């Protein structure tokens, strides 16, 4: 299967596409927390690393099947997300941001000093189990899940909390409970993404999961348009591919990357697809079509 795949798509493009898919899963999780529920978190990379290390250690040292370890890694990340969420989600806005930033650093330092994670030397010899097929499959699964969530009672409750928490409470929504659920699901997706990440790179190092990575993922979501699922996907794709496609300008690469960020924020302050409602767009087009035909 893999050989057939590499005869169709160059392994380099496969690698980059897988990275895009993996980041999309993580970004969808963050979009649920920050975009939909309005809770600012700067520690998403920590949950990515929890999932990555858990899955990697399970397949490497305990020889568990890949998909099972992937799910267990996701659950581990969700568990830590909920444990962190219970005390921390009482905070709002910037304060929550700082608290999650701190948690991210704790996780990084903990992994640096643990024996089982290989410490500062890193964890090597992880089997390469991620391929374009299982990554794509999980991306589709994740997209379907978050689309269904967004348009459910749960999703509407999250939006209500984002817009006005007090009003939402007055309407009988248990804001704390919903926030923790959203945090748990978001972290689960991050954990899954981390598991794929570990089995793509085959090597993990705690320093790779610093706050820069958290900001990178936040960038994907904000640039695509906070709260927009298509926006998150487009934002992640553009920002992950840009450094690769900008290789031809060599040392100016990161400068142009930065310039792209600035330009996008000037012209589209709400993100690439922020504020675009696809359902409404489709409905309007349909209405136009029916009006024309009649």
């Amino acid at each position, binding site marked *: 299967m893999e050989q057939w795949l590499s005869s169709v798509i160059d*392994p380099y493009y496969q690698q980059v596409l897988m990275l895009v898919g993996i980041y999309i899963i993580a970004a969808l999780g963050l979009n649920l927390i920050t975009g939909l529920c309005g809770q600012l978190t700067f520690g998403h990379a920590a949950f990515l690393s929890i999932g990555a290390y858990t899955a990697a250690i399970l397949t490497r040292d305990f020889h568990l099947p890949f998909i099972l370890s992937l799910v267990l890694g996701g659950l581990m990340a969700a568990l830590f997300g909920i444990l962190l969420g219970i005390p921390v989600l009482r905070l709002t806005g910037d304060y929550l941001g700082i608290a999650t930033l701190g948690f991210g650093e704790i996780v990084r330092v903990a992994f640096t000093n643990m024996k089982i994670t290989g410490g500062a030397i890193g964890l090597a010899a992880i089997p390469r189990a991620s391929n374009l097929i299982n990554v794509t499959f999980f991306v589709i699964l994740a997209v379907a899940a978050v689309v269904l969530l967004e348009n459910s009672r749960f999703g509407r409750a999250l939006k209500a909390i984002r817009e006005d928490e007090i009003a939402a409470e007055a309407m009988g929504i248990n804001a704390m409970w919903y926030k923790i659920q959203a945090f748990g699901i978001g972290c689960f997706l991050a954990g899954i993404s981390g598991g794929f990440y570990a089995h793509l790179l085959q090597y993990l190092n705690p320093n790779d999961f610093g706050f820069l990575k958290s900001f990178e993922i936040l960038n994907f979501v904000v640039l695509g348009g906070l709260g927009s699922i298509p926006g998150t996907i487009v934002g992640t794709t553009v920002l992950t591919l840009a*450094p690769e496609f900008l290789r031809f300008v*060599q*040392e100016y690469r990161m400068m*142009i990357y930065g310039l*792209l960020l600035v330009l996008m924020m000037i*012209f589209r302050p709400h993100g690439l697809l922020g504020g675009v409602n696809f359902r409404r767009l489709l409905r309007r087009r349909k209405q136009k079509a029916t009006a024309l035909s009649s």
Partner: protein
Amino acid sequence: MKKNKIALIFLSVLLMLALVTGCGGQTGSSSGGENKGGGSDDTIKIGFMGALTGNEASYGIETLKGMKMAAEDLNKEGGVLGKRIEIVESDHGSKLSEAASVVQKLISKDRVVAIVGDPTTGKTKLAAPICQQNKVVLLSAGAVGPGVVEIGDYIFRDTLLDAVAAPAVTEYLVNKLGWKKVAIVTSTNNDYSVGLTKIFEEALARHNAQVVDKESIQDGDQDFSAQVTRIKQARPDGIIFTGYYTEGGLFMKEVRKQGLDLKMAGGDGLLSPVLWKLGGDAVEGSMVYTGFAADPANAAPQTKEFIQKYQAANDNKLPDMFSAQGYDAVMLLAKAMKEANSTDPSKFKDALAKTRDYPGVSGSLTFLPNREPVKSPVYLLEVKNQQFSIKAVLPTEAPKV
């Protein structure tokens, strides 16, 4: 609304442009030899893997400089097997995820026969399985950590390992300087330090020197008075310090403060001007070993030539370890290709593994049967008037496994 739409279109066009030219640029640069399977008609491609931006950039930039000098020298003499050497460079910005893409790109898009890199152990370990799987030679010009060449028979490195250097230094300390009783200071949250301490302890035991005191510190500590007090009571002949320069400088300050007239010796973790910026007079006489020191006066002829060429091209700046090892890496690959009379990695990797006593610009190099390099000599530097000067040039021998 309309303005937004225009902006959106403008942006998409810009992105598309970047995309298209990106692809164009790549196919253009590699059109010389595609689909020929490992090299082409008239060029041999060697990939550079390393950071040109980000916090590891200083290693990568120097490595690449050395590699380019080697390619120039080779091409001036007609290339290798009648083909030109071409260095394909790719920056990974010190990021793990991009490093994996870079290796994959070098192998499948640029079709290099060998990759020189990465200067760090971590990213070398990331690249090694990919190279091994695709049967491309990986020669790291910087990795010193454990568990690198064990990954496969296509994986090499041309660095001075602590397991080779520290025993030679220990012999000098014990037999020439008369350190019979030694205190060892380890930074316990620093893997490099923990590993180096182990090597020193074994070497000291072999030379019948006694470890009279073992002290633990942590990277980031500022106060070492308790540790130094204990060292004072143990009355050693010298201190072996396996941590980094920041703590090393501060530690020696405390040693002098408590009135001890001991000298410190350590690995290249101490190799930085920060040592005397923090330690001042207290670090005068401290000894640091390293695999390469640019010493135009006493260097071997090939090293002298390299230093001159480097200085001419870089405003009289002296080359460092990374540029010298980058130069050697390309030269070693070229030599192996000539000997195997082939640019096929599966053939010249065996010739490379047979390298014995190769006179490189960063010292002579021999690959052991397990592909670990043994380099000689090791330079023992001494801090003199707030500068490193060469105290001794020590020959090394293969570690006993």
